[in-house]
């Protein structure tokens, strides 16, 4: 049942958002954002789903079928799956930058509490 996927994506997104809004620990905030990111992957993969479809791979089709028949038939949407790949690559880069900033903050401030890192305000 695909509706479960959508519910799970929404739940993951809200869980991540809750973490970002309420946790003051920087590492936990990064984890929350990662959760939100994962929920978008789940959402996209679920949107790409067609009932009873095959993978959108047109090379080496099963016996008796041509690639054209496969493409015209029931395959999952490759474009949305592609977005997921793009987003995963970007997500990895962002998480790496995130964690390196957090490590530097921890080295300088000896704390990870967002409430103690509020020099710039007003």
């Amino acid at each position, binding site marked *: 049942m695909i509706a479960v996927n959508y519910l799970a994506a929404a739940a993951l997104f809200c869980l991540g*958002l809750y973490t*970002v*809004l*309420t*946790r*003051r620990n*920087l590492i936990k*905030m990064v984890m929350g*954002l990662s959760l*939100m*990111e994962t929920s*978008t992957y789940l*959402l*996209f993969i679920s*949107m790409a789903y067609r009932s009873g479809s095959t993978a959108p791979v047109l090379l080496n089709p099963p016996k008796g079928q041509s690639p054209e028949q496969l493409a015209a038939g029931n395959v999952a949407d490759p*474009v*949305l799956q592609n*977005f997921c790949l*793009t*987003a995963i690559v*970007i997500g990895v*880069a*962002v998480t790496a*930058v*995130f964690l390196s*900033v*957090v490590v*530097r*903050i921890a080295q*300088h*401030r000896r704390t990870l509490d*967002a*409430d103690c*890192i*509020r*020099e*710039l*305000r*007003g």
Partner: protein
Amino acid sequence: MTQAALGSLLPLAVAAPLAGAAVAPLVARLSPRLPLLTSLVTLLGSLGLLIAVAPSVFGGQVVVHYLGGWRPVRGSALGIAVAADPFGLTFALLSAGIGAVLVLYTLSELGGLGPRELGGYAALVQLLLAGLIGAALTADTVDLFVWFEVAALASYGLTGFFLERPPALEAAFKILVLTTIAGFCVFMGAGLLYNTHGALNYGQLAQDLTGPLQSADLLALGLLLAGFATKAGLVPFHGWLADAHTAAPGPVSALFSGLMVNLGIVGITRVALQIYPAADTPVLGVLMVVGVASALAGACLALVQDDLKRLLAYDTVSQVGVITVGLASAQPAGVAGAVYHLINHALFKSLLFLCAGAIVHRTGQTLLSQMGGLARTWPGLAVAFGVGVASIAGVPPFNGYVSLGLIHSGLTDSGQYVPYALLLAAQLITIAALSRAAWLAFLKPRAEDYEHRELLRPGMQVGVGILAASCVLFGVAPSYVLEHIADPAASALLQPAQYTTAILQGAGHVMQLRTEFDYADPAELAVALSSVVLGILLARRVLRHGPPRVTDLLRRAHNGSVNDYAAYAISGLIAVVATFML
């Protein structure tokens, strides 16, 4: 050259800085300054390519190129379209041009850094500019998201460039959190649109999005607007902006404020005026409210800042609000004024940030209360800063006067007098904030002399000089700029059907609208001069009696907590989505 040949130049304008970004860290091994010189070359090359396309585009042609020759089949496009319309091209030209000036400035200000730092810096700057140019020229929602993220990743690196400074790290974390959330919004919006319409191309989406919309479309509209508004630094999505500008080096603040926030404006414009215009949505009303709120809140916060760069950063929030109001008026004069103001803002805000950077670099002071007497120490810098302030204030011979006048007439043309009045109030407070800064930094006498004084180096002088001259130039030749830049841009924005058809057909023409600007209109002159006088009076009052109590409330809301800033942005997102869906 034929249209197809011109179109094939467009991807090169993005590829040049991208290639430069890849090369920069490598050539740093040969000589520390080589990466910056490389970026100067790639940016000028990119500028040259864009200028080659410019006459045709500003003449009303939409130059389109489908990457890899994947042209649309029976009206549906799978390939990525790169399309230069006058609005996108204006922003791309600005990015390449001002980017080159900023690199030149950096070459003489930060040229003393080590090879590793300069290599990384040059790579990040070129990456950011490639992202901006790419976003300006693309006609594909997911491509727009990718350029958004490229620019975002580069901006994280540049914010935290001086990793040994704790405020830079704090600012980098804030910009990371808010921009990442914005990225999710844009990504989900683009995905939802694809899911319901099977289209990524602006042209195809605009043709599909007519009549009553499904709730998924409205959700996508809210998500896209909120995402781009975060990048643009509109209230309440602006938490990251002031911090990132304060912590970054001068040329980087100029890059962020003059160019990067405009990426958000480009996104908002594409979505609101070119993709969704045929559908009946309250999008212009939402933009009007957000724009007026930003203009007022930004100006009030700028009025009470003691840190010069922070003051300028909050003024950016205010100016972006003004641009948004112009776009939301959806009148030829208002939209042309918004495009004009976008150019002007890029020029005068880069100029002011470079001046601020020069002051911080030379005197080591960041706080206005500890500056003073700079007009006597550096008269040249004082003149440049004065030009910037006069431009923002809308004093007649300078460029701000024209664009503000156009936005005002756009509002009065459509009978929106309440936003007009609020915009005038914001303008008055802005003038007060900047004249207060000019007084405290340059004119107020200072008892003791500065410890180290050093004249501006040639590269810095040239950079500041070019920007100041452009501010005057764009102010004294309004009819030329209107006829050749702002009017064509407004025409493409206000006649979206012609632009979107051109994208799908691979070429096309946009009919030109004409707006008039009367330089000596007595009413507009009176408004400009009286707001300057009232603004200076307000600045005097603030200097003598302290800031009004409203600003305390605003300052307390900006408490520096990244959780709270994220909460503001999310509540803004919920409010925007709710307006569309209910």
